[in-house]
């Protein structure tokens, strides 16, 4: 560390060049952070999805409803901790562009199955007391400026109420969650939906079943599908994680595209940084000669050059990751299309590793050249 002043002065020899190199690395790692965030956003929370929660949908496709009569049969099955149902509502709030998920649930079983949705007891009481009550995610409330107590009208598309086209809801409470949890959803009560819809009584969208032992997921799934085989509504069961993954795969391999672009970007930046380092070292050949004369070993020279390279990478890359992280903290910039917008700590760690790797790779060639310089050649180039 006593060589830090030497490295520092070496960096600022050509101020403009160093600044631009820092900026290039900064942009490269800013992009890295953003691309990793986008990749995570398109996986829709696969990481958090439960392995001990199973999803049952209609065997033909998700859009076909299941009878609510399956619920008691599922709850009575051995190995089941709890079962509940969800129903997609798909209504429109003011404008079809204001898309967000509206789902009809059974309040208490649902929140027991999803402890990651955090609700205060007062809000929970309010929701149970009001048939038209809804539980809204904090990010969704922030997006539209809603507060507890607001009345929200939603135009039905799949189901119309018995009169008119508009369903009225009251915000009974807000739910929060850790990073990676989708806080843009709108949960309302199934009993309100079932009583007031013009048709389709007794039908639900899909079932969520929590099983006691996650390792039996495969067998439990097969058992459920067998229970309902040859009925009017056959089921297909997957783990929640598998279900979300399947969904993400339908979009396409966005993850792979993001990674490919990242590799391209980092490779290019590495070339740029390497080129700059090489130029910088070439200019200071005589200095290297002097250092060697003074007694610095070859390995010491190698270390000095590599350290300089890594220092540039760390400063530029560190800033880039920090700005990316800061930007992601602001939340989803697309207004609803990417509800899970976080930069996972794991990717930050990978980024840090890549920064050091970039610094080492960029400095490798110039460092070895400097290391192998003969003192007489170096001094002659003055």
């Amino acid at each position, binding site marked *: 560390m006593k060589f830090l002043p030497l490295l520092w002065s070496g960096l600022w020899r050509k101020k403009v060049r160093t600044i631009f190199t820092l900026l290039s690395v900064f*942009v490269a790692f*800013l992009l890295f952070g953003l691309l990793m965030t986008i990749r995570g956003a398109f996986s829709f929370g696969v990481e958090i999805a439960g392995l001990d929660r199973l999803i049952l949908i209609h065997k033909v496709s998700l859009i076909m409803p299941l009878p609510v009569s399956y619920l008691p049969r599922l709850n009575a099955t051995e190995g089941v901790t709890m079962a509940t149902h969800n129903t997609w509502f798909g209504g429109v709030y003011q404008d079809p562009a204001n*898309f967000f998920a509206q789902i009809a649930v059974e309040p208490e079983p649902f929140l027991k199955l999803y402890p990651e949705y955090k609700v205060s007891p007062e809000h929970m009481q309010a929701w149970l007391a009001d048939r038209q009550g809804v539980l809204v995610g904090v990010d969704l409330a922030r997006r539209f400026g809603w507060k507890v107590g607001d009345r929200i009208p939603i135009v*039905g*598309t799949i189901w119309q109420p018995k009169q008119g086209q508009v369903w009225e809801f009251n915000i009974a409470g807000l739910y929060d969650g850790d990073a990676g949890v989708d806080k843009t959803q709108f949960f309302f009560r199934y009993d309100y939906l079932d009583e007031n819809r013009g048709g389709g009584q007794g039908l639900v969208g899909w079932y969520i079943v929590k099983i006691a032992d996650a390792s039996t997921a495969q067998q439990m799934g097969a058992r459920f599908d067998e229970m309902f085989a040859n009925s009017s509504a056959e089921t297909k069961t997957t783990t929640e994680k598998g279900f979300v993954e399947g969904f993400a795969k339908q979009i*396409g391999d966005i993850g792979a595209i993001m990674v490919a672009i990242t590799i391209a970007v980092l490779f290019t930046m590495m070339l740029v940084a*390497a080129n700059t380092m090489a130029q910088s070292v070439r200019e200071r050949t005589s200095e290297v000669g002097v250092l060697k004369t003074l007694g610095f070993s070859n390995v010491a020279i190698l270390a000095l050059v590599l350290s300089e390279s890594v220092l540039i990478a760390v400063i530029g890359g560190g800033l880039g990751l920090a700005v990316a992280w800061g930007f992601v903290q602001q939340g989803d910039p697309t207004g609803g299309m990417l509800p899970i917008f976080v930069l996972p700590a794991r990717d930050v760690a990978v980024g840090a590793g890549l920064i050091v790797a970039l610094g080492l790779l960029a400095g490798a060639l110039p460092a070895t050249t400097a290391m192998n310089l003969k003192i007489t050649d170096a001094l002659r180039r003055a």
Partner: protein
Amino acid sequence: MFNWIGQTLAVTALNLRTIPQRLGSSGVAIVGIAGVVIVLVSVLSIAAGFTAAMQNSGSPSRAIVMRSGADSELTSGLSGVEVDVIKQAPGLRRDGQNAAASAELYVIIDIPKISTNTPANVPMRGVQPTAMAVRGEASLIEGRMFEFGTNEIVVGRGASGQFAGLTVGNEFKSGQDTWKVVGIFETDGGVSETEIWCDARVLQGAYRRGNSYQTVLAQLDSSDSFTTFRDWLTANPQVNVQVRREADYYAQQSRALSGLIRGVGFAIAALMGIGAVFGAILTMYTAVSTRSREIATLRALGFNTTSVVVSVLAESLALAAIGGAIGGVISYLAFNGYQTSTMNFSTFSQVAFAFQVTPPLLAMGVIYALVMGLIGGLFPALRAARLPIPAALREL
């Protein structure tokens, strides 16, 4: 005047001729710019291909009738009675008594996607015998049309390529129903190519829909009779519908997804562009530094500073142009026509499309490259012009 131009040309020519001496750093700049152009063009070609598929789908002389308030075919519902009323509306092309209108049922069926082997939402459309007549652009490319009243189906070219088991002669089971593929159709690359078509009546039975449909696709007798058609229907108390031109409907369905792709594409390319500009600046800086003695000598000889500035800019632009061209060619060869499919959230079903690297896109890429080269060369060019001659002559 001519002296000035002559000087500029001479120095520029010198610069360009000596590029091979700086192959290393020039190569880096070219690779950097080519990389940015490839990313920009490829991501935007996804949006272009998707939009093209959606645009080829709707005809402005056809109208689509859905239940009022439904935002997509999936959430619409029309009874058999309403469909009969709709077919009596004025403005429809008729041959004899029969209106050129097809009442249709639109459902989703789970079929594995070949590329990932996970289930995908494939659209299945139940149609009436008038469907092929209404859809003038549809034609069979393999096999034959299905027989109404049976469980035979025809599949679109896109669907056949993207999802498992959709080949002529193959049968597959969905729930308790078995469907048999007897033909493959194409519709000029439109969204319908991702669909499976069957008899609406058979589909109603399989999905327990009674005598209900979801939409009516009507061929208008002329593009202008749309207003007559729509007004008659919306004023009619027997039906509760909304009427749109098919082209407008599909444009609206594609807006969200193509907007997202394009937004993400431009954002990434913009950031990469900034990075590439810095890279270009560094390269040109290096170029100027290595040749500072040369440049100082030229200026000492009497060449004016403008010629030096122009020559550095010209070199930067030349490198950028080469990078842009290479990037464009690689994008075109690698990505144009690449078939894929994704899920359109608005319709909750898959859309098969091909990446499209269009001439405007290539032009955009090259222009972007040139802009990067211009900005990248400016700083170093000015620096070269302001080099103090004695110091520069002494420099390494």
